């Protein structure tokens, strides 16, 4: 894990200002696209908590994204006026419960077993929704009405309005970012990072590492469920593909490309991958070939991702400053 240095904070603040200003210049299509990217970023940040901070390589994280989306669509399908806070609370608690069960079974194993188990459980959830005739099967399911955010009788934020929703999702993204950076600075987070570095040593220090891993898994699953909830409320449509293993694979790609072990890295990775997915099909029908080539390139030449690059640049910057200071002394 890297400490957040001042150049990084300045960089993040510039990114935030750019995101705040974007809808004014971006036009409706790109505003919608960036909304989608920010929702996916919430999902990939939560995956980074597992991969980059706790050292748990989950290959089934898309399951929780899909469960969050499906729960909103299933539980509130017939409801005319969906209370936003109630639906969110219910969806997230149930997603957290699913993460607790799957996590409890999975963290008993480690290494390759953990990867394959999370993958297999995600496939199990996928087939549950794919084959079940009650939940739309392979066609997916529509959500008739969007949740309403009301304060008394006054409607606070209109989720039908693309600009409202953009800022709403941005607020969630910033909130999740701050929440996770708070957790990671707390003693709990230090234990997670230590588990990634050397689990045996942490256990020798008297920590019950399975409990820490499980809590991390549940937090990550619940945040992924939040992203799924936001996506379902955005598009009013949920398909089993949300839970598919290709989604989990692409999410890992986004985390690694952006830089795991940093909270802002996954956001950068998500932006790049989704923009490429949007951009490449203009050139060739076989754009996944290029995508595969990019992934191989990242694995071989950029294992620390773009955040790693940013850190090495900012380190050079701060160390040259220090040398500069030393000359004066």
């Amino acid at each position, binding site marked *: 894990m890297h400490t957040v240095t001042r150049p990084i904070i300045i960089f993040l603040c510039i990114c935030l200002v750019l995101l705040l200003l974007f809808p004014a210049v971006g036009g409706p299509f790109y505003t919608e696209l960036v909304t989608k990217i920010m929702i996916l970023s919430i999902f990939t940040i939560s995956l980074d908590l597992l991969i980059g901070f706790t050292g748990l390589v989950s290959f089934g994280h898309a399951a929780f994204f899909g469960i969050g989306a499906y729960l909103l669509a299933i539980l509130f399908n017939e409801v005319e006026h969906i209370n936003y806070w109630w639906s969110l609370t219910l969806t997230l608690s149930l997603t957290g419960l699913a993460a607790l069960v799957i996590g409890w079974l999975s963290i008993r194993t480690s*290494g*390759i077993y953990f990867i*394959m188990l999370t993958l*297999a459980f995600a496939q199990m959830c996928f087939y549950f929704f794919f084959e079940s005739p009650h939940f739309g099967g392979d066609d997916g399911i529509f959500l008739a009405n969007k949740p309403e955010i009301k304060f008394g009788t006054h409607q606070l934020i209109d989720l039908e309005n693309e600009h409202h929703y953009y800022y709403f999702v941005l607020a969630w993204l910033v909130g999740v970012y701050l929440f996770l950076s708070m957790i990671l600075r707390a003693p709990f987070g230090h234990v997670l990072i230590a588990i990634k570095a050397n689990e045996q040593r942490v256990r020798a220090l008297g920590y019950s590492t399975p409990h820490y891993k499980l809590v991390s898994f549940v937090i990550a699953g619940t945040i992924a469920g939040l992203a799924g909830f936001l996506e379902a409320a955005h598009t009013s449509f949920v398909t089993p593909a949300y839970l598919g293993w290709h989604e989990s694979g692409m999410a*890992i790609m986004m985390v690694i490309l952006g830089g795991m072990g940093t909270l802002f890295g996954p956001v950068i990775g998500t932006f790049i991958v989704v923009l490429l997915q949007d951009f490449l099909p203009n050139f060739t029908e076989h754009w996944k070939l290029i995508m595969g080539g990019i992934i191989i390139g990242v*694995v071989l030449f950029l*294992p620390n991702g773009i955040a790693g690059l940013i850190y090495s640049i900012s380190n050079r910057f701060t160390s040259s400053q220090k040398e500069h200071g030393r000359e004066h002394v």
Partner: protein
Amino acid sequence: MESSFYLIQLLNGIQYGFLLFLLASGLTLIFGIMGIINLAHGAFYMIGAYLCYWLTGITGNLFTGILLAIPLSILFGYAVERLAISHLYNRDHLYQVLLTYALILIANELQSIFWGNDVHSVAIPEVLKGSIQLTDNQAYPIYRLFISSACIVLAILMYWVIQKTKLGMTIRAGASNREMVQALGININWLFAIVFSMGATLAALAGMLSAPVNSVYPGIGDNILIISFVVVVIGGIGSIKGAFIGALLIGLADTFGKVLLPEMASMVAYALMAAVLFWRPQGLFGKV
């Protein structure tokens, strides 16, 4: 009627289990000996099926198609190991997952470039056409019996290679202690290349054998990959015996699941895996 119906399902389940064993045995050896998590294993199944379709179409005969496809699969597995997998030794599983995932994307796109996105069928040769009449209206196709017997022959061959030959001795030694094998002066790169292309060829063979039954279509390798993972996890990583038992269990569970619980059929295999792992987290024959 009832009992012959269940007999047919039993035979189908065993036949599916044998096919899964061809995939899972390679996968489990690649895990156990090379320490590589190979998501591209399903891609070899897909390539086997497409090669079989293509070469059978050219030569007009399934057997010559398969015979020509086998050396191609060996070469292909060897090339993938040298070009991609060999960069992954001693790296974190995370990067192995990512790189082999990229190989799937590439293999699927190449398949769509070379062979298109249509569903193709492969003709069963005259000798193996027809079926055995069990009762008035229940019959069992001969070709499926051929698949099962081919798998049994391959399994015996594999047993012989692994238990009785010098190469097999090296492979077994590599599975139990990789460093010691290296210390004894055995070229581990050579061993890895052989194990990988052997596993790839077994997966491709499974694809070839099942092509006439399941037809050939895009994404054919993706679903079977995950089921093979389930088999490996149930059997225990690195254990061929475990892969055999796990494959038969999953083959039977899946087949009978489709008959008895049609709405939840695809979930039965995963539920079985969860149950086994609840009882034994390291799999049936896995080492702790």
